[in-house]
């Protein structure tokens, strides 16, 4: 395992940072926060141009065939820049299932359009309880001729208003094992019977919606994977989604640390920079240490996913748990260090704080993943 970036990866990182500093300043972030859709088609087009929207797709689908570790490097920078919009939804939540479980036809239909920036996708899996587990998937899809008819409500669907297609996890069968009987449908978001209602959530950089489907007809050819066998596809995607969230968290955490350290050097109180007080120094030292160790676990998780190692599940759970705790703590400390100004709406610190909360809670929080790890020791 090699934790040091190679030359190409260093280039990707530098390029990503430059690109995002130019194309995704905080003014854009705040503009998107105010926006109900939260998606900037201009930014999206530019991302397609630099090849980010097909980064890990094979060349034949318009991709750049880079690996998963490369993707996390990019996402680290996106987390640092607090980039809004449907990248995570399109690339991870919907893109990975298509890439890994789609038929050749489906891949040809969707992947090139994603890569070219012509298609925004997302995933609707969570329901009333908001937790990612198979028992929660109760929304029903019933076969009728060549179609399936889907009715019910999905919660916490990210970027639904920006999406052209929504991958919907629905229940098509029941058995003692709740993992069986779940089927994934690519649903055209413009279909009759679809209602999308914004949810007022804390992290406004990552829009979420309530999705109501009222007798929506989906052709069976839009099923990703086999009927009733959708859950393992989502599980596989979730591993990658978690690792990417970890990368975003580490990237965001480093922004918070750097911003805090700079503030501590500049802000004068009692005639000296506040960074000369031990209470501030030690806070910064702890933030730094936490992020160092979070990074190690995040990079380990990314590497084992890339390599397809059997350690993947435990590595991802460890990284997700630790990064979530550290990111939340670092953002809290960052606000405290800034004092009053850090508590204002106008300062950017709270954007990171809120993202740390939504990222920790997505796909299982720290407690949940510690529980999963414990089960492996049983």
């Amino acid at each position, binding site marked *: 395992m090699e934790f040091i970036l190679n030359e190409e990866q260093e280039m990707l990182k530098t390029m990503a940072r430059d690109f995002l500093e130019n194309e995704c300043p905080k003014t854009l972030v705040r503009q998107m926060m105010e926006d109900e859709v939260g998606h900037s088609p201009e930014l999206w087009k530019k991302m397609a141009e630099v090849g980010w929207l097909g980064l890990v797709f094979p060349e034949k689908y318009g991709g750049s065939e880079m690996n998963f570790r490369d993707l996390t490097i990019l996402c680290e920078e996106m987390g640092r820049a607090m980039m809004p919009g449907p990248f995570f939804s399109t690339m991870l939540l919907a893109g990975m299932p298509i890439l890994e479980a789609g038929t050749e036809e489906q891949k040809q239909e969707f992947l090139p359009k994603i890569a070219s920036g012509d298609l925004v996708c997302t995933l609707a899996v969570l329901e009333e*309880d908001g*937790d990612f587990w198979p*028992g929660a998937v109760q929304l029903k899809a019933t076969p009728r001729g060549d179609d399936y008819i889907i009715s019910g409500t999905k919660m916490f669907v990210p970027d639904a208003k920006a999406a052209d297609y929504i991958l919907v996890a629905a229940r098509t069968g029941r058995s003692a094992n709740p993992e069986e009987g779940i089927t994934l449908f690519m649903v055209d978001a413009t279909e009759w019977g679809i209602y999308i209602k914004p949810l007022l959530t*804390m992290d406004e950089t990552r829009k979420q919606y*309530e999705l109501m489907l009222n007798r929506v007809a989906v052709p069976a050819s839009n099923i990703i994977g086999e009927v009733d066998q959708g859950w393992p596809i989502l599980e596989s995607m979730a591993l990658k989604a978690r690792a990417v969230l970890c990368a975003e968290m580490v990237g965001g955490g480093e922004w918070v640390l750097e911003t805090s350290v700079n503030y501590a050097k500049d802000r*004068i109180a*009692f005639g000296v920079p506040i960074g000369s007080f031990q209470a501030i120094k030690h806070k910064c030292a702890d933030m730094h240490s936490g992020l160092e160790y979070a990074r190690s676990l995040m990079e380990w998780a990314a590497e084992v996913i890339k390599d397809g190692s059997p350690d993947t599940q435990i590595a991802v759970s460890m990284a997700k748990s630790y990064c979530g705790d550290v990111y939340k703590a670092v953002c809290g400390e960052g606000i*405290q260090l800034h004092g009053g*100004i850090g508590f204002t709406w106008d300062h950017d610190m709270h954007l990171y704080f809120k993202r740390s909360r939504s990222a920790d809670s997505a796909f299982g929080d720290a407690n*949940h993943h510690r529980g999963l790890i414990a089960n492996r020791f049983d």
Partner: protein
Amino acid sequence: MTTEKSENLNALRREVRAWLRANLPKGWGTPEYKPPPSYSREQHEQGKEWTRKLYDAGYTGFGYPKEYGGIERPRDEIAVIRAELGRTGTPGGPLSLGMLVAAPAILAHANEEQKKRHIPKILSGEESWCEGFSEPDAGSDLANVQTTAKRDGDEWVVNGQKCWTSMWEFADWSLLVAKTDLEAPRHRNLTYFVFSTDTPGFSRRPLRQMSGEAEFGEIFFDDMRIPHENMIDAEGRGWYVAMTALMAERSGGGGFEGGGSALAGIGMEGLLDADSLVNLAKNTKRYGKSVWEDEAFRQKIVQIAIETQAMRWSGTRMAAKMRKGLPLGNEASVFKNFQAEMRQRRGNLTMEILGAYSQMVRGSSRAVDNGDWVYNMLRSLGATIEMGTSEINRNIIAERVLGLPR
């Protein structure tokens, strides 16, 4: 054994209860009751009216001499009244800064005329107050005030800005600390004033906090003229008046009585309530199971319940000390830090309980308990910053309570 005295107290208790039943806002204490947002004009007027009612009934205004409008009653009667008000969690809120900060500072430092002019109207709810204290460059370093007041005949001309002003929007009067001597050393260059918010040259605007609300404001002085008679204490003594005001604020307005009231004064009745946390855990299902079934959560929730009790009894202990006339001083810093950090621990724990719903904020029909848990968590981040950061308070504890070198 029933003494005459305890009979009287029981009668008083019954009287207060009857009065509360008749006068409490409609629906108060029921889950359906939704108070208006604390920074609305409506809430402000309700608060004034409520204070007036309490005052007329003789249920507030304790601790001040009669000549300043104070209400003098025997200690045990006051204890009964406070306990009964505390039991129902009577509304506090928009007037609290006058009671919490202005009245104690005026009582301790103002002249006779000023006391007679202001304290009665504060106690009776007639006039509401805010406080010009923090500045962009005078946060933790409170002495670094940049707002100036320049003597011009019988007036002082004030220029500058204050921020993090609570109760800024509807206040009738304000405290103000300004630099009056550009040459004098720190802590001896400041002077305290009071002024009416009608004064020309005064303006205010909201300061939006990270939770989205604008509980605080910024206030500005542009050649604002204050009559000399509005100066409090002597020229150059502003730092000491400010310290009185700050200590009063940290200790919850000297209201440690019954433990709870100190918290009530700063709007944290809910903090003394562990049951609501338990109920939240019982009512929240995660991965198909009640959160309360999880031993790890039980441990964390009980820890908060324990800290809640510790806070309650520390309040009682401090109140008892004050009653005996024992020195209290900087215990307020200990109390302030503990409650602020405990609020954050509590806030974080509620988010862990809520899972995905920890994202749903006020205004969302999907939010749990109207989004209050989320708001309280976000708001708690300010608790370790306002009224002296946790770091400054730790310095105070170490230096003034424990005697460590500066």
